[in-house]
């Protein structure tokens, strides 16, 4: 599991770096961005995983979200992996922007031809943390997860499916109920097969209904002028209703005038970093 440093830039007294490694889970070379705060030079730091949305690579978040200052301030290592395996030469992987490359949907595929490479759920849950903990000054006990859109969906399901693994979870405009939306139906159908009951294992709204375990404090920001919100791709109301019913604490903030872009993310990234720092540094 050798790491190859692709880039390293000093940023807020820490370093924003990009590494490449051979993924056993995904059977391809994977890149990830990692921000090492200045505190990491002297001690172990908690890790906050960021999951990006459709079409993104490791680059989008680290170049556009402007999270580094807050991460440096709170002493968090922030890891931003890619969103899917790349260059696996699977037929049709590059055909559409919402399926295949750049759209791994953080599931472990069970259908051919995807099931060999498209194992993003396991990659994020196991392989990547192991790799990070082995190579960087981390505190393996303290990790949290957040993401945007498809990554928000990924963050929610990883937190809900693994109670206690993540200290906190938050999301920007997450796909809250994929089994009910076009993106979800296409991706889950593609990776998991037509049996919709199997999809529920990767549906945040469904998972909440059966969640029990460590208390979660979920922060969700949603741009009110998000085109995908009005298109019914995100469906946060369903998730909130399920959380209300199950008394899962959520603060859902509908932000007036914001859309689905990284400008929106950058506007509220500090709140999310603080939200995680509160639990990671408690």
């Amino acid at each position: 599991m050798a790491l190859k440093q692709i880039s390293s830039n000093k940023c807020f007294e820490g370093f924003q770096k990009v590494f490449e490694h051979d993924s056993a889970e995904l059977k391809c070379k994977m890149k990830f961005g990692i921000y090492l705060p200045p505190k990491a030079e002297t001690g172990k730091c908690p890790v906050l995983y960021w999951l990006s949305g459709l079409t993104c690579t490791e680059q989008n978040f680290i170049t556009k979200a402007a999270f580094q200052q807050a991460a440096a301030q709170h002493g968090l290592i922030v890891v931003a992996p890619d969103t899917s395996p790349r260059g696996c030469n699977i037929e049709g992987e590059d055909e559409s922007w919402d399926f295949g490359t750049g759209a791994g949907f953080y599931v472990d595929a069970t259908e051919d031809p995807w099931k060999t490479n498209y194992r993003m759920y396991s990659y994020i849950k196991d392989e990547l943390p192991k790799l990070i903990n082995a190579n960087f000054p981390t505190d393996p006990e303290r990790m949290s997860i957040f993401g945007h859109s498809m990554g928000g969906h990924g963050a929610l399901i990883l937190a809900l499916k693994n109670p206690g693994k993540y200290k906190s979870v938050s999301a920007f405009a997450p796909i809250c109920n994929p089994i009910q939306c076009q993106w979800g139906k296409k991706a889950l159908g593609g990776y998991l097969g037509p049996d919709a009951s199997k999809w529920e294992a990767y549906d945040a709204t469904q998972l909440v209904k059966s969640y029990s375990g460590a208390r979660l404090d979920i922060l969700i920001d949603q741009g009110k002028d998000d085109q995908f919100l009005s298109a019914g791709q995100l469906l946060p109301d369903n998730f909130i209703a399920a959380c209300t019913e199950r008394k899962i604490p959520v603060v859902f903030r509908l932000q007036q005038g914001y859309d689905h872009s990284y400008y929106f993310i950058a506007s509220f990234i500090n709140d999310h970093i603080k939200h995680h720092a509160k639990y990671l540094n408690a």
Partner: protein
Amino acid sequence: MDLYGSKERFDIFPEEPSGRGDRSLGDTRRESALSSEKVQCPQEVGYDLEKEVAELAKMYGLDEDREKELELLGGHLEKVESRWSPAHTEKAGSQDSIYNISKSSSSVRDSSQSTKQQGLPDEASQGENQSKARADDEAESSIWSRGGLSSGGVSDEWNSQAVSEEEEEEEEEEAEAADVFCSTCKIPIRAFDKLFGDHKDHEVAQLPSAVESEKEEIHKNMCKLEEQIAQMENVASHLEEIFITVEENFGRQEQNFEVHYNDAVQVLAQKYEEQLEALGEEKRQKLEALYEQLVSCGKHLDTCKELTDETQELFLENDKAEFMKVKSFNCPKFLKQEVDLELSTLPDFEERVIDVSEVEQLMNSINAIPAPCAPVINPQAPNAATGTSLRVCWGLFSDDTVECYQLCYQPVSNERHSDGQAEHTLKVKETYCTITDLLPNTQYEFWVSALNASGISPPSERAVYVTAPSPPTIKNKKIRSCENAALVCWESRDINPVDSYTVELSKLTDEENDDFITESIVGIPNCEVLIHLQPTQKYHICVRAQNLGGSSERSEPVLIHTTGTCFYLNEDTAHPLLAILDDGFTISCDELENPECDLPVYDNSFTRCIAILGSLIPFPGKHYWEVEVTEDTEYRIGVAFENTPRHGHLGANNSSWCMRHIITPSRHKYEFLHSGMTPDIRITVPPRRIGILLDYENCRLSFFNADIAQHLHTFNSHFQHYVHPCFALETPGILRIHTGITTPPWTALP
């Protein structure tokens, strides 16, 4: 016989009366001078006495450091002796006796030195040879100094040391010879004496142990002597005091006598002069009368002689007719005239009543004392007053004899007509008095007169004293505090204003010394103070009021826990429909509209929103409190400026910030209102306990679901002024406010 010469015979006194008066006055003066000389005589005697007492005192080491004295006792006494010898050479006997004392005391010193050696036997034996050699030298020098050469203190000491060591040497010589001690004969003997000599049947002890016991005995005696010395010193100093007192008293009496006797003498002299004058006048009158009588006698005699001559001539007349003619001559006529042979005046002088009553009075008054002068009353001393008592002091200007004082006082009143106000009078022996049962923080006027058998002095000036104030009352319900400070206010229990207040705070520890004052804040002009405290401590705080008279007792203490921010609810801001329950922190609203509409409305109370303000939170930093709500209660909670409109809704203006809970048919709706605006926030778990964090420094007001530490919303606002917590009910229900809560750590970050 010359009639004029006879006058001299009556003149008993050789000089003129006036001249005599002068001379006699001079005599009296001389006499009085003599008497004053006599008076001086005892003084001289007294001086001698004084000197002697001083010498005695010196001898017993009254003037000098006692320890040093003890060490130098021998030498010093010799010094005394040498000082005495030139002055009292004739007092050989006493000199001798003192010399004896000096000798005995030097032997005391010997024993003390030997005691020292006893304590350090090794060292003593080590230095034995050395000291012996030295003793030889010193013995010589001691002989040299005993030869009569006067020597200073140092050499005196040297001498006594030398003497002691000389004696030691002797002891040692004896010790070489003898090795046991005969208890019967009290002498050291050689061991074989016990066996074969005179001491055969005597009880013996080993010499060292005998020496030990003997030294012990000596040591005891030493102690006794020291005790006696101390005792005598005490007695001597006491005597000296008495001596001074006697001298003072007698001096005063002497002066008194002098004044009075001078008066008496003067009066007597005056009387004498008056008497002399009267006597002279009488004499003159008598002499004049006698002289007149004498003259008339002479005249009569002359007439008789003439008549005799005429008669004789008539006898010689032969002419009978002529004879008969003349027969009717005036002789029978003359003879008919009676000759006054009675003495017109008696030679002895008239009885005169000499009025000596004045002198008598004067003489009687010699032993009496004059009425004292007015005492001087002191101004009030600091801290001489309590709330109900005053300590008044005064003094006498002169040496007047005073039996007691009459102290009068009355409260100072601005109203003149209250002159009849109780004026109290006390008889006091001392020159001070503590008056009790007074009113706190009140001015009293005092004046004092001195009394003795002869009368009462005029009163002193009037002095105004003021009693200390009553302890203030801390307004328990008005205390505000936080982790770092407290704002305490109180009210004075006195009508008159006080000068300042002092706040005392004691930090309570788990240990016993609870009331240890850790800090005092003095000179607080108002009835309110901001105290800086340490977090998570307990403090007892009390207040004292202060005026010229002193400080009051402590107020009832209040307990302050610096666990978190505490405030109270301002009842006067409450909407008429809003009620505060007994605990002071639960507000309730039973119905939204009152059909009668006649509820009292204060100027400051909310009229539209059923709201109430808490007290101002006047401390910078972070403040946290919680509000317990029920899920079906609609409320607004937050903070507001003092001047937030009372007719508006909380959060609807730019002077208030609040979280609002509304129940819609579909869900619980939460708004975070400021200037009527709210972000769109959905909260899945309705909070039952809302935590509010006010952070002045970081310009932040945050709301939390305190039960699950969930951050709900944060207003970022720079508060220009300190704010009040505010609470409003929009449906019937209750809000329970919790203060004094430690700010939870999870509030640090949203």
